[in-house]
């Protein structure tokens, strides 16, 4: 599903004449198989979010290649990656990233609109998805009118509404209380088991790391350990 080969990445800080190169990732290579839940752990500054952003196509690697579903996405331009994200990826963010001026229904409907689905079909799909995440009574609520857990459910619903084979999650439980966190982890397990959705989850939470079939530990931009989280 995901093949990360010899990825090196650094940020360039400062302006001309006073540039500072900050290395973030060094020769990272790993694979994520179809239907797997892989968690990436590491301390703050270890490069785990940068790694997720590279796989998401939000930034381009300085060196190396990323192949997702047999496509060398590291060579995609912005438009190609946008289309690829829409078709093959779903995103769950730590702070939900919902559009505040849209209702829960409209937020979930957005990927379907971008895909060009007909109004009737997307209304039905969105309603089904709202029901699936247990928010059928909250469709007309704006994000500010929902709890953190509900917002994250909307965010998950939006990520799943196009039924992508891959979900990338960046600290998905970071803004949730422990009870809601457990609900969410359970939901992720169900999706993985029932629909075969592949998850790549960035976390520093041991609870979350444990749901992974495999965990990759990063430190100072390098993989220091890979295996089942203990």
């Amino acid at each position, binding site marked *: 599903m995901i093949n990360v080969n010899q990825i090196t990445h650094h940020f360039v800080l400062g302006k001309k004449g006073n540039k500072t190169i900050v290395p973030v990732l060094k020769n990272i290579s790993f694979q994520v198989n179809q239907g797997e839940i892989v968690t990436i752990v590491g301390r703050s500054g270890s490069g785990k979010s940068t790694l997720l*952003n590279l796989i*998401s196509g*939000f*930034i381009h690697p300085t060196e190396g290649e990323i192949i997702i579903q047999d496509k060398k996405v590291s060579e995609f331009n*912005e*438009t190609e990656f*946008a*289309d690829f*994200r*829409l*078709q093959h*990826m779903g*995103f769950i*963010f730590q702070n939900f*990233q*919902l*559009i505040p*001026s849209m209702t829960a229904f409209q937020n979930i409907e*957005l*990927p379907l*609109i*971008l*895909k*060009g689905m007909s109004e009737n079909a997307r209304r039905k799909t969105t309603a089904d998805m709202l029901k699936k995440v247990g928010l059928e009574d909250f469709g007309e609520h704006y994000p500010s009118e929902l709890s953190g857990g509900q917002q994250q459910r909307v965010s998950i619903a*939006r990520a799943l509404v196009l039924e992508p084979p891959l979900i990338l999650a960046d600290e998905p439980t970071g803004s949730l209380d422990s009870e809601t966190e457990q609900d969410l982890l359970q939901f992720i397990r169900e999706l993985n088991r029932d629909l075969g959705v592949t998850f790549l989850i960035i976390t520093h939470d041991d609870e979350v790391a444990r749901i992974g079939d495999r965990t990759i530990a990063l430190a100072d931009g390098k993989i220091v350990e890979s295996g089942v989280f203990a």
Partner: protein
Amino acid sequence: MKVKDQFRFIIQNMKKNKVRVFMTVLATAMGCAFLIVLASVAFGLHDTVLKDTMESGEVTQIQVHGYEESETSYRAINDEDIKLFEDLEGVNAVTRQKSILQEVTFSTEGYEVPAPAVSAHFPSEEKSGLELAEGRLPEAPNEVVVGHHFASSLIPEGQSAEELYDEQGLVKEEFRYDENIIGEPFNLKLKKIADGKESSGDFDVTIVGVMEAPAREWEWDQNVYLTDHLLTELEDFTGTPNAELYDPSEMEVTETSETSYDNVTVYAANVEAVKAVSDKLKEEKYATYSVVNEMKQLNMLFNVAKAGLIFIGTIAILIASIGIYNTMTMAVTERAPDIGIMKAIGASPKVIKRIFLLESSYIGLIGAAIGIAAAYAISVAVNLALPMILEAVFDEKLPSGLRFSSIPFSLILIAVIICLTVTILSGLRPAKRATEIDVLKAMRREI
């Protein structure tokens, strides 16, 4: 993303900042209305001139003034020339008139009037579409047709001019001839000089028709139109061509002067044929004048004026476009986090750009629609109020049919195209900025 959804998206976005969008639309509407109203003046005056020319019935006429013998000399048109004109393709009729070259007095039952007399070839006049206000064309040699104002020019014999005419130079009501002049016998008095002595002769004529009023209000027609036969009689009496008043025994009469015409008009079959006939006549070295040719220059002049006024109006729209640019830039800045989220979940830069361009176009279209409605209202008001104001201020009646402002569909189309182009251009830079928004920075609210 479907256009319908993009449209719904922008409406939703515009609702977030109603006041700002309203002010921008208002500025665009004002610019658009200014452009249309300004240019409508040139369109209105052009229409008035064209209408006036068309109504005068002169559009198919080509006046032929003479034949160019050399660069400096012209000869009058003769019968041979007339034959050539009549044989040209696209010619409907060729009218020719000769003026009687002395003052002729017409009188009846105590009324008289000195009037210009002209001989006309009535078959060709009829073919050219001559219509009478009343009566018919002459059939007998002594029958004549008179101009529309002939009857009102008749004055009682022996009255002094001071008593006869009002302030406008017209015969006062109480002195006017109030009988029907059709079928009325008139005396035509003509002078001649023979052997150094002046004498006069009387000819009986009957008025059988009255011409239509001239197309232009200010024109005055008190001519008497005679038959060729009657002119020959008059020429025989005076012994001079065109019955000119001089002693024929003292002057040598040339053949040319006997057969020449003063006023020759070629009537083309239709407006389209005028140019071809006119060009042919010019090619044959005839000096011509046609309204259509003059209208070409006039059209060019008005088109330049229209283009100039549209250009000035466009400046107003350009000023309004600064508002659109500002509104769109603000919208991009405000919506940067939303744009970041949309890009993250798969909105391509093209879609983002299209949404913002559609928004600026929508503002331009609404502005243009309001501007057009306002321009129509202003145009109607101007056409109603300005003549009244001008008449009140200058105490003069304006020509009937005068339109100060006219808004044809072409002007609306031009205004909409200019408005749309300017608004799209002003939205381009903000739209491009929206596509360049960094997803990560936007989601971290760093923009």
